[in-house]
């Protein structure tokens, strides 16, 4: 509507603050971070030296770093899948013509604003060995006897994190899916119903294909958010037991700000960035395009 030639000052004014903020506080740090990943930078050292790919070699020679990568994919991947499926199911149920949709939606969405720190505290209580409601429930149904040390079993602890992540993200996916569902013209489904398609057929041939892209985008957003999330592993599980919940975000944060090894942390962060770029590229290429 406006042309740059006619309103050059306004154009600059509109973009300058955001570019300054994002450029100064995100782009510069990321570029600088990549640069640091080739140095041995550390506040504990007076001199910073260029070390080439030493940090990366150090990382990839460390079996624990591979475990961290595995944990990250496992926890973030499963959480994304669960929250997407659950969010979709809740949305489908809410969109099935029942009343009080607004009320249910609002009730579920409250979960989305519960602060992570609260979830960290709360999950510690829910999954407490002795008095946690989860174990009490499992005991009362006879699934387990005695105690189940959710936080001390390397096989169980990731699930505590996964439950927290999925729980917190379901409302977001639900709201997006519900909005997309409500955006599908009624006539399309009515036509299919007249054509003789039952609920499952309509779901499979009409609803899901129409929802596919928006769901995939929501899932990607959630996956990226899970990658960033650090409160639960940092406060609740501290990366344990036996490193089972040590994820990339925690690893990078600890390398930088408890070990003060900026070079190594930057290398881990760079690996993370590359991973995201490659993943988003593949995702875009093989999942989104098809249905677009």
């Amino acid at each position, binding site marked *: *509507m406006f*042309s740059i*030639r*006619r*309103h050059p000052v306004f154009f600059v004014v509109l973009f300058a603050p955001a570019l300054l903020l994002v450029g100064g506080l995100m782009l510069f740090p990321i570029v600088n971070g990549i640069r640091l990943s080739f140095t041995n930078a550390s506040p504990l050292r007076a001199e910073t030296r260029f070390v080439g790919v030493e940090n990366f070699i150090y990382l990839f020679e460390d079996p624990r770093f591979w475990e961290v990568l595995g944990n990250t994919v496992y926890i973030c991947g499963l959480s994304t899948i669960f929250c997407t499926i659950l969010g979709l199911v809740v949305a489908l149920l809410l969109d099935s013509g029942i009343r009080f949709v607004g009320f249910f939606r609002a009730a579920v969405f409250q979960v989305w604003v519960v602060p992570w720190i609260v979830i960290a505290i709360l999950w510690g209580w829910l999954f407490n060995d002795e008095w946690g409601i989860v174990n009490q429930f499992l005991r009362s149904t006879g699934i387990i006897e005695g105690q189940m040390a959710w936080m001390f079993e390397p096989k169980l602890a990731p699930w505590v994190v996964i439950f927290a992540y999925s729980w917190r993200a379901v409302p977001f996916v639900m709201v997006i899916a519900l909005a997309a569902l409500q955006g599908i013209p009624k006539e399309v489904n009515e036509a299919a119903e007249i054509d003789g398609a039952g609920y499952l057929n309509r779901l499979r041939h009409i609803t899901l294909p129409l929802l596919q892209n928006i769901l995939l985008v929501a899932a990607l957003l959630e996956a990226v958010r899970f990658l960033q999330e650090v409160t639960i592993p940092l406060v609740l599980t501290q990366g344990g037991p036996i490193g089972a919940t040590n994820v990339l975000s925690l690893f990078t944060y600890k390398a930088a700000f408890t070990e003060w090894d900026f070079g190594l942390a930057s290398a881990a962060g760079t690996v993370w960035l590359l991973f995201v770029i490659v993943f988003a590229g593949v995702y875009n290429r093989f999942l989104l395009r098809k249905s677009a």
Partner: protein
Amino acid sequence: MANVQTRNIKKKYGSVEVLHGIDLEIEDKEFVALVGPSGCGKSTLLRIIAGLEEHSGGDVLIGGETVSDLTPKDRDIAMVFQSYALYPHKNVYENLAFTLRMRNTPKGEIDTKVRAAAEALNLTDYLDRAPAQLSGGQRQRVAMGRALVRKPKVFLFDEPLSNLDAKLRVEMRTEIRRLHQDLNATSIYVTHDQVEAMTMADRIVVLHDGDIIQVGKPMELYDAPATTFVASFIGSPQMNLFEGNLDAAGGHFHVSTGSSIRLGKQYRSEASVTLGIRPDDLELDASDAADIQGKIRVVEHTGGETLVFVDTPFGPLCVRAPARSQARVGDITGVKIDRERLHMFDASGLRMSAGGA
């Protein structure tokens, strides 16, 4: 003096040129309508005159001075939009006052002008209302009022009536025309509705695919359309057009089925031409004097007149018959042609003048 001129206006979106060099002269105090089908560039041209779009080449002049580099604010124009474009968060009074406030008009003066405009448009009782509380016609009047509080040099209308129902549209037509006469400002009016253009404008500019096809008074366009496009665009029901050829002498028109018709005038001989006849210039004629015979396919009674669609050897033909015409579907009838009022277009669709060698 507030004449409006465009000189060789070009507009490109990327590599696509949508206006191919528009030259237009609009006199002071003139009411000009820009018509054409959607996508012809008429709105773009108006927006270029308004300064909302930048042109890729050429010049816009208002009152003899180039305004190409001026923002709308400095062109002293007013514009009425199709969707009314009222400020939803301001009441009617504030909507009307906004433009004056933007020009730092003193408070007292704003009040006087707003109240005068509201008076003129019968909006005085609604000044405190929000746009959402108004009817379509009232909103339209607020939109007009917003334009006229300022007494600008040029009024621009971008399809202002297309969101109204048919009855209101007719009312507003006269109202806009009356306002134009009261204000004596130059007005440019964009519409895709040729009836609006015919009834309101002093002059009509027909645009097609980014070019001006014809400029003229309404009846000039009606009587002497410059191209087949104008011929079919102006006038309702639209002109009957037949493709065929002229004989060597130029006095007869032949169609591919073999039928022919004698013309009232002499044209230069052409292999491929289009013959146009307005439904008004045809008459159902049961007598032997009829020029063409055909079978009635459809009869439409519109109340004031009857449209009779006849299948003839030349092709389907629409005839405007009197209101109480007895024509019945299936009847064989004759059609009489007013030979003086035939239109002939050459292969490229341009109007041919009679008597050419």
